[in-house]
Every structure is written in C-alpha cells, then in structure tokens.
C-alpha cells in the first residue's frame, strides 16, 4: 500500500503551526546578529553564524518548551555556533592593529567620539573578556549562566567581567585610574 499523501489541508495546518515560531525566530534576528557581530567582529561572518544557528534552532525546536525562553536559547546557540565555526585561535589571527587603533583620547572630545572610542576598545578586548561581557550586557545572562556556558567557575567569570570593565573604565569618564584587578582563580 502506498504511503498516505498528506492533503493540502494537512500541509496548510502544519504550515500554520510553524508560522508563530518562524515569526518569533525572525523577530529576534537583529538581536542575534548584533550579538554574533560583537563576538565575531565581522559582519558577514556574523550573518553566517546567525543563519546556521537559526537552522540548528529550527531542527531542534522541540527542545524549546517556552516561547519566553526563546531569546536566551537562541543566543546560546549563536554563541556555540560562533565557538564551533570560528575557533578562538583563528579569531585571534585577525590583526586589528591597523584598523582598530584606539583614537587619541584628547581627540575624543564629544560624546559620540567617546562612544566610538569605547566601541574600539571593546572590539580590542581579548575574546576571554569580550565574550562574557557581551553575554552579560547584550544577552542578559547571569554570572552563573555564563559560567555554565563557558565551563568556567563562577569566580573566574566574575574576575573576567571585572577585568573587562576595568580595561574600559579609563575611557568612560574623568576617573581613569584602573581598578585593582584580582587574580583569576583557576577555571
């Protein structure tokens, strides 16, 4: 007996059921792209990462129980996709010396220039500092969630976040004395 062929009505109902999830994923694409862009420091690579992440998310959509958890779930997939597709070492191969010189602070006399200077500085942060910072500030992940995701101790994450902000602190206002950075505990 031949396999039953789904009717136009059945296919239509299946498409209707998928529509909300598709719309949900698509509504988060700008957030995901921005997140991936700050991790990868390259727009076209970020687009590839997000595309692949959305594909993976779609394939494992059964794992998403609550639509409210979709954002964190998708951001986690994007982060893993970034780590998977673009190994740390290859990321560090991108020389930023020419393109990302921090502008002279004296020239950064207005708010826009200060913001631009800060963006440059964030881009120049080593991945071990930039990644938890972006996860926390952009992704809204807690310290514990970052520690779990990056397979670090909670103290190691606290230290990295502290150091990330300490490195940026001097660019954000008149008080530019660096904070006393504690030693990082072994992960």
């Amino acid at each position: 007996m031949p396999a039953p062929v789904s009717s136009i009505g059945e296919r239509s109902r299946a498409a209707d059921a998928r529509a909300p999830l598709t719309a949900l994923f698509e509504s988060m694409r700008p957030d995901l792209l921005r997140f991936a862009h700050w991790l990868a420091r390259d727009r076209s690579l970020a687009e590839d990462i997000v595309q692949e992440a959305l594909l993976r998310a779609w394939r494992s959509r059964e794992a998403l129980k609550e639509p409210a958890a979709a954002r964190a779930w998708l951001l986690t997939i994007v982060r893993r996709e970034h780590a998977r597709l673009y190994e740390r070492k290859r990321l560090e191969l991108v020389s930023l010396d020419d393109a990302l010189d921090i502008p002279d602070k004296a020239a950064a006399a207005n708010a826009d220039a200060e913001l631009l200077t800060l963006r440059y500085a964030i881009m120049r942060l080593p991945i071990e500092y930039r990644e938890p910072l972006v996860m926390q500030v952009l992704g809204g992940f807690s310290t514990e969630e970052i520690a779990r995701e990056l397979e670090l101790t909670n103290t190691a994450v606290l230290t990295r976040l502290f150091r990330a902000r300490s490195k940026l602190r001097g660019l954000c206002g008149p008080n530019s004395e660096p904070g006393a950075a504690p030693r990082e505990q072994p992960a």
Partner: protein
Amino acid sequence: MICEDARLLIGADPDGAGPGLEEHVRGCEDCSAFREEMRRVNAAIRRALAEPPDVRVRAAPRAVPRWREYALAAGVALAMTAGLAVWLLRPSDTLAREVVAHVEGEPDSWLSSHGVSAGEIGHALQRSGIGLDLASDKIVYAQSCWFRGHYVPHLVVETTRGPATVLILRHEQVRAREAFREDGMTGVIVPAGEGSIAVLKRGRGQVDDLAGELRGEVHWLAEPEPAPARVPMH
C-alpha cells in the same frame, strides 16, 4: 565582606545587589563611589553595545565548506609529500624565520597584560606533553599553536625587561644556541631536552637568561595521542 571582594562583585555586575554587598557599600564610602562610577561605565558599555560594531576590520578568515576542507587537506598532504626532501634539508635559520613569522601572526599575544588561568596554561602545555615549573603568574598569554606539523605551547612571559615570547619546540632539534634578529625581534633558540626552546623579544634585548631558566623548568612528559586528522589552519 572586605573591599576587594566588594569591588570584584561590583566590577563584575555594577547593577547587581546582594545583602552582603549592600551592607558593605552602606558603610564604605570608597566602594560606594566605586559602584557609582562602575554604573556609569556600565551604562556607557550598554550604549556602545546597543549598535553593531561599526568598525572596519581586516577581512577575517572565513569558515569553508567541508568539501573544501577535504580538498585542502589533500592538497596539503600532496604538497607536504612533494616538499619533504626540501623540508628535511632546509637551512637551520629557517626555523628562526618560521618562529618569527608565527609570532607576528599573533600580534594580540604581545598585548596581554594580565595572567591567564592555570587551566589555560595547562591546556597549552598538556597538548604537547610538556610540564613547566615556571610560576603561572608570570605567564600572560598561553596558547597551543600548530607549528611545523605539531602543537606547541606558545607563551608570553612577563619579565623584568618586558614581555618575552616562548615557543617550546619538542620536535625541533638544534645543535647549539642560535641567536637571530629579524623583523624587529631578537631571539635565541636553545637545545633543551629532546627538542628546543625559542625565546623572543620585540626590539633588542637579552633573552638568554630566560632561555637558560626555562631549560631547567621544562619537563618532557609522555606526548598525548594525536587528535583525529584535521586541516591545521594555524
């Protein structure tokens, strides 16, 4: 709670709160001021991250399709076979040049100013079956790098004369100390155990002290089994 702990918590999450932290901040003007400042910093960071980084970067290496990796692997294997004789007969100063080229390929390594975790150092060393007695707080950069067909530890060590790069080359033998100066770097490669150690500094400087010190601190452990074949990209 002491000030150091409070500042770690504040710096890690300026908008966070906890009973212990709040109690400390209420009674400590310095930490209270620090929290206010870090909150301003955090607000600025939030504004900076709100838009994608509108920064031009040099083209990043792109992920390649799987079939191209296999094709590349085949090409690399062919090239390696064809060039084997040349490779075996290469002049000794080629090693120094390749060491310099490798270090130039990781410019960020010189920028590190804080220690790396013991886990990261351990990972960089264990992949090559290397043990090291050097105090971990001197090491500000640690990677396991693909170099001449093997993973080698690539470290940057903070010395009294500035940072120095160290490559522990288990599979590269040299007969005697070789000094070199190339592309603005000064370095030596010294025999050590079953291989050699390369030590480099930017500019002119003395690196023999560190090289000598490392010779006594490196331990050659059993080399781990190689990972499944994969195209080395670096």
